[in-house]
């Protein structure tokens, strides 16, 4: 019936399936580079710090749109610079009519933030329409910093607990190192380029964790399967085989995710650009870490080779 209407045609199988890239041969190099990247990121974080957004630093942010279509950044700078509010940053945002004004946290607690904002809005006058206002007081910003950090750490812990439960502790170690690597390197990139780090960045970090662990689990699953299948194969060779076998999936899913993210980055609007950029970077790093960190670590840690009883147990639920 309906099915007859759908033409039968084959998809393109892009990948040469007998490809056996020697990933494991370069594991020392890859892990060395990754450790270097992590150390550099940590160093940057402590030396340069992060360019925290309003969410974490406190203060205010106002997005304005010029009613006549052209925002005069220089004039605004003149007007707002003399208000005595400390650091007031003005930058154009998106199109020529939009500007983003950031006012640093005012001394004097919660009330002072509102007072500072009011001064700016009064000074800007009626030539502009407010499109977005964000004011975060000192109490909330410190809470958001804490919950943000806890959320990332707990996210990693929850994932590790699950991986440990489903696999073996060596896999969990691989996952925790890979995930920490992803988070650290993204934070390092934010520190190096002084990109704004706010609540949406944390949400993106959590999403990256989700994506990266997804990758790691797929590779780990294949490793476990091959451990049962090839009981005598040398471990590094087996790991290499597993990575290669899942490579077509890793690349296809990665390309699809990146295509969607690029579309979101270009067309998704100014407000979530920061988020999408973080995701793009994270997907690439997350894919790298599953191949070059999580799996090779198993080569160092070694892993239980006899999975026969485990295999019997796992065969039952897989029918569900």
């Amino acid at each position, binding site marked *: 019936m309906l*099915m007859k209407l*759908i*033409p*039968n*045609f*084959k*998809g*393109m199988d892009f990948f040469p399936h007998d490809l056996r890239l020697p990933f494991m041969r370069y594991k020392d190099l890859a892990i060395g580079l990754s450790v270097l990247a992590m150390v550099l990121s940590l160093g940057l974080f402590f030396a340069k710090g992060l360019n925290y957004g309003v969410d974490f630093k406190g203060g205010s942010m106002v*997005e304005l749109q010029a009613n006549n279509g052209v925002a005069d950044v220089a004039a605004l700078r003149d007007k707002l610079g003399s208000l005595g509010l400390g650091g007031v940053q003005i930058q154009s945002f998106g199109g020529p009519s939009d500007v983003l004004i950031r006012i640093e946290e005012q001394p004097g607690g*919660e009330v002072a933030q*509102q007072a500072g904002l*009011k001064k700016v809005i009064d000074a800007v006058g009626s030539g502009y*329409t*407010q*499109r*977005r*206002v*964000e*004011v975060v*007081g000192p*109490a*909330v910003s410190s809470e958001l910093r804490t*919950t943000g950090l806890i*959320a990332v750490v*707990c*996210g990693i812990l*929850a*994932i590790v607990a*699950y991986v440990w439960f*489903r696999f073996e502790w060596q896999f969990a170690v691989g996952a925790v190192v890979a995930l920490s690597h992803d988070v650290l390197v993204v934070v390092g990139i934010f520190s190096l380029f002084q990109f704004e780090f706010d*609540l*949406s960045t944390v*949400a*993106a970090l*959590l999403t990256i*964790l989700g*994506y990266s*662990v*997804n990758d790691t689990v*797929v590779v780990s*699953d294949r490793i476990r399967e091959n451990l049962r299948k090839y009981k005598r194969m040398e471990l590094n060779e087996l790991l290499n085989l597993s990575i290669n*076998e899942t490579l077509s*999936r890793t690349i*296809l*899913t990665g390309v*699809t995710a990146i295509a*969607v*993210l690029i*579309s*979101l980055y*270009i*067309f*998704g*609007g100014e*407000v*979530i650009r920061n*988020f999408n950029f973080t*995701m793009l970077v994270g997907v690439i790093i997350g894919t790298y870490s599953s191949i070059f960190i999580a799996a090779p670590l198993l080569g160092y840690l070694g892993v239980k080779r006899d999975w026969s009883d485990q295999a019997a147990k796992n065969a039952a639920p*897989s*029918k569900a």
Partner: protein
Amino acid sequence: MLHFTRLKTIAVLLTCLAGLLFAMPNFFTKESVATWPNFIPKQRLNLGLDLQGGAHLLLAMDQDEIKKDWMVNLRDSARRSLRDAKIGYSALGIQGTQLQVRLTKPEDQEAALKDLRKLIQPIGNAILGSSGNDIEVTEGSEPGTITMSLTEQGLKARVASAAASSIETVNRRINNLGTSESTVVRQGTDRILIQFPGLQDTAELKKLIGETAKLTFHEVHPSLTAEDAKLTAIPPGYKIYPGTGDEGGEYLLRETPVVPGEDLADSQPGFDSRDGQPVINFRFNQAGARKFGAFTKENVGRPFAIVLDDKVLSAPVIREPILGGSGQISGNFTVESTNRLAVQLRSGALPTKLTIVEERTVGPSLGADSISAGKTAGVIGGIAVVFLTILAYGTFGIFAVVGLFVHLMLTLAIMTVMGSTLTLPGIAGLVLGVAMAVDANVLIYERIREELRTGKPPISAIDAGFQRAFITIADSQLTTLACAMIMFWLGSGPIRGFAVTLTIGIITSIFASVTVVRLLISQWIKAQPKGRGAIKVPV
């Protein structure tokens, strides 16, 4: 695994149909949905303030102020009950959350303790029973002293009731701004969240909730002025109050008001009949009218003070007893400020001052821009996914795309039915859900290809592909689910919205990308010509 019973097929199809039906209203305008017949669901997804525009204000109550007010009340009650019991005391002092009582005669301690313990009130309600007392009354360290201290539970209960009444008051005040779509809820222990869709200019809102608006009427000290009292000593029970703005000056008033703010029944903005200045006309309830009548009768010719938020608005002289229970307040008002003050007074005083600790306002134009940008990006991203999937997997790719469509519809339908709110981060969660769904199909199809390469016949290769890939899919989805749960549990606002859509997306992706796609493939197999080697797997 590829076989579906008739019942199961029908169940899967019905689920898809229900998803489509409940998701549908989101694709039409509100107006056209309203004209649909009644049997079609009409509920639409709530859009978060970041998408539809509006104001989000997080307010904090001042816990210290609540404590202080309570301590002052406690001191007044203690003073009254000691006086009624004719027990002499030499000191009644507030130290933090403790009230120290020093009796004149140490031998009165037993009696005083018994008397002051009558002030203890149990916390709790009729249903759940009492969970403790609000204050503790104990013997002090020295003979003849008594310590009254607030308990932790007592404070909690106070803060809770202050939050509840603040919410009511804030609600009444902002209902005067027009639309009633706003929501006011408690967050955490001492915070209140106002969400006001569609509101862009928050200046008036902030002014309305920025004042406690506690209006009280006080007796002015008959002989001493504030300046005199400062030089000598402030008589017990009296306190110095500042005047407002221009008038300045200070007043020595009895601290306990003649008529408390709660006795105000109504207030309206008006104009003075003589000079046309803006004034507030007010009316007391019965109890207030009686108290005010009695007081003005006894004090003709003397001044009394009208105090707003601990500042003296005016201190007119009583010319004749005011028995009707209504009056007029003049001050340095403008028409705008009388309008606002009348609303504030009518809505009742806030139990404590509210401070804005977080504000996020999105103008409707930005929200609309975000939605249209999201749509454009979604459509282009969607086309990219459809193109890549069909390019890579041919006919089976088409099935995967159908599965993706079902996945999106079901996610939207569940969110609509649950009444959850779609925010900008929520859209990101939706996108990650799509990525997970695509990944599920990629895993299955790559596996089928592998099985085919080992030389398995088509149908068993497909079957094995689904079975083997399912373990991996379940593992990867469950770990992401664990991550989403943590985000939901810990996260505030934006992170939560993300976690909710992601969770729903993961659950529906297992159904849509695995079950629905499997059903499609099993139908496809049935439609193929029978016979050995006739089926060519188009993947």
